């Protein structure tokens, strides 16, 4: 299959009876940076869990590209989700350790990733000794050491302050441009979605379904120039309108 991620008529109903998703279908081509935007509780995270095979759909199919198997998928959670008892190095090493990669080999693979995330020199620090921004960087580093083809991100910067968040946004874009992985980025921020992605998938309130699919045709690298431009404001407005429409949208059958 040519797409990196393909969802076809996906339904998800939990055992509690809660209907999270109804008739969700979209494709993400390899290397695309796609944002998944919607109100809280609309099932955005559920979509990520389905793509990561942490959960099964109740109906429809979820496919990931044939070259995207197993640990080629990485996941970054809203919280840094680090092991508090392990050093930053051992946290980042975890996926490699599970895969049975030797410590020496792991060290070679981890060093450049830590350097690219400004974490070099903090290998021996414990999570409690790091700032919130650094913990999130460590979490991203852990996701990247497996050299994933698909990176799933679940509101990774929501808990950070605005300044740290803006910086991490730019760092993430630089890493994406350097490595060319596919990104599915869940957020409830219109501005973040438009700033980061090539395409914004807009979801309605629960049961979640797609109500908009907008292309953000702006060149990278993006920076302050884009943030301050009227084009950016217009795109944000268009996405906001799509988001608003989701509240009163008709459900698919």
């Amino acid at each position, binding site marked *: 299959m040519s797409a990196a991620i393909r969802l076809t008529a996906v339904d998800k109903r939990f055992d509690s009876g809660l209907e999270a998703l109804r008739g969700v279908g979209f494709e993400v081509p390899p290397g695309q940076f796609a944002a998944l935007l919607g109100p809280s509780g609309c099932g955005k995270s559920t979509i990520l869990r389905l793509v990561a095979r942490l959960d099964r759909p109740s109906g429809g199919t979820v496919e990931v590209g044939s070259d995207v198997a197993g640990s080629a998928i*990485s996941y970054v959670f809203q919280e840094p989700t680090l*092991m508090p008892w392990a050093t930053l190095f051992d946290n980042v090493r*975890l996926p490699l350790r599970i895969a049975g990669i030797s410590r020496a080999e792991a060290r070679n693979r981890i060093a450049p990733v830590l350097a690219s995330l400004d974490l070099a020199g903090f290998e021996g620090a414990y999570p409690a000794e790091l700032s919130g921004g650094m913990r999130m960087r460590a979490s991203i580093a852990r996701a990247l050491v497996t050299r994933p083809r698909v990176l799933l991100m679940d509101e990774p910067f929501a808990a950070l302050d605005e300044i740290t968040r803006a910086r991490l946004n730019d760092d993430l874009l630089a890493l994406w441009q350097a490595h060319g992985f596919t990104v599915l980025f869940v957020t409830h921020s219109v501005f973040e979605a438009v700033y980061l992605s090539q395409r914004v998938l807009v979801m309605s309130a629960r049961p979640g379904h797609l109500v908009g699919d907008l292309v953000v045709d702006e060149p990278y690298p993006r920076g302050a120039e884009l943030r301050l431009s009227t084009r950016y404001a217009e795109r944000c407005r268009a996405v906001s309108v799509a988001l608003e429409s989701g509240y009163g949208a008709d459900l698919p059958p």
Partner: protein
Amino acid sequence: MNRPPSRLFLPALVLIGAIALWELWVRLAGIPHYIVPAPSLVLATLWENLGSLAVAWLYTLKITFGALLLAVVGGVLLAVAFALSRTVELALLPFAIVLQVTPIVAIAPLILIYVESTTAALLICAWIVAFFPILSNTVIGLRAADPSLGDLFTLYRASPWQRLRWLLVPSALPYFIAGLKISGGLSLIGAVVAEFAAGAAGRETGLASRILEASFRTEIPKMYAALLLIALTGVAIFLLFNLLSRLLLGRWHAGELGPGR
């Protein structure tokens, strides 16, 4: 330990002051030593009977740490079984609770009848008292692992063994240590209480038997001396496990809980 000196100084001062007051009161009021002995007499008695008391002390230590070891092994194994299977937990938890809530002095005489070796009977009694905190804490700890970290292990296709070693055991460790601290004190209590129930009999006996023996002969200072040894042992066990906890959890756990713990 970066404590201000007053944190150690104040309790030490109060303790020394209380002992001095006790000494003064006994001397000035002329309290007979067979009612309340002065601290100095208790120490002198301890010194005079050091031989027999040390033998008894070693025996009590043997029961205490033997029971604690069994409590750790039994408690952890049972906790792992509970964590792996709700069915096992449902089936066995009632027994664990019955053992926990029944006063040991009420069960001890029966155990002493059924089990021929007094040492084995005392071990069983002390174990019954000590194992529950380890069991219940370890069960909670094994279930306390961060679910997102669990998802991560699933995503990277960790084996059950990897999940146990790198996720469940470290997550459960602080809970286990908290249980161990409680059980350490309880196994000493269990060892002493069970020996009281057993009475001063048998070839090998512990500090409780020394206390019973001394009370039959109204040797009050000797009762105090044995009591002092038990109390000091309890304090030593408490300090030992606090140190162990600091060594094992030290850096990350202190950071997790914030200062002052």
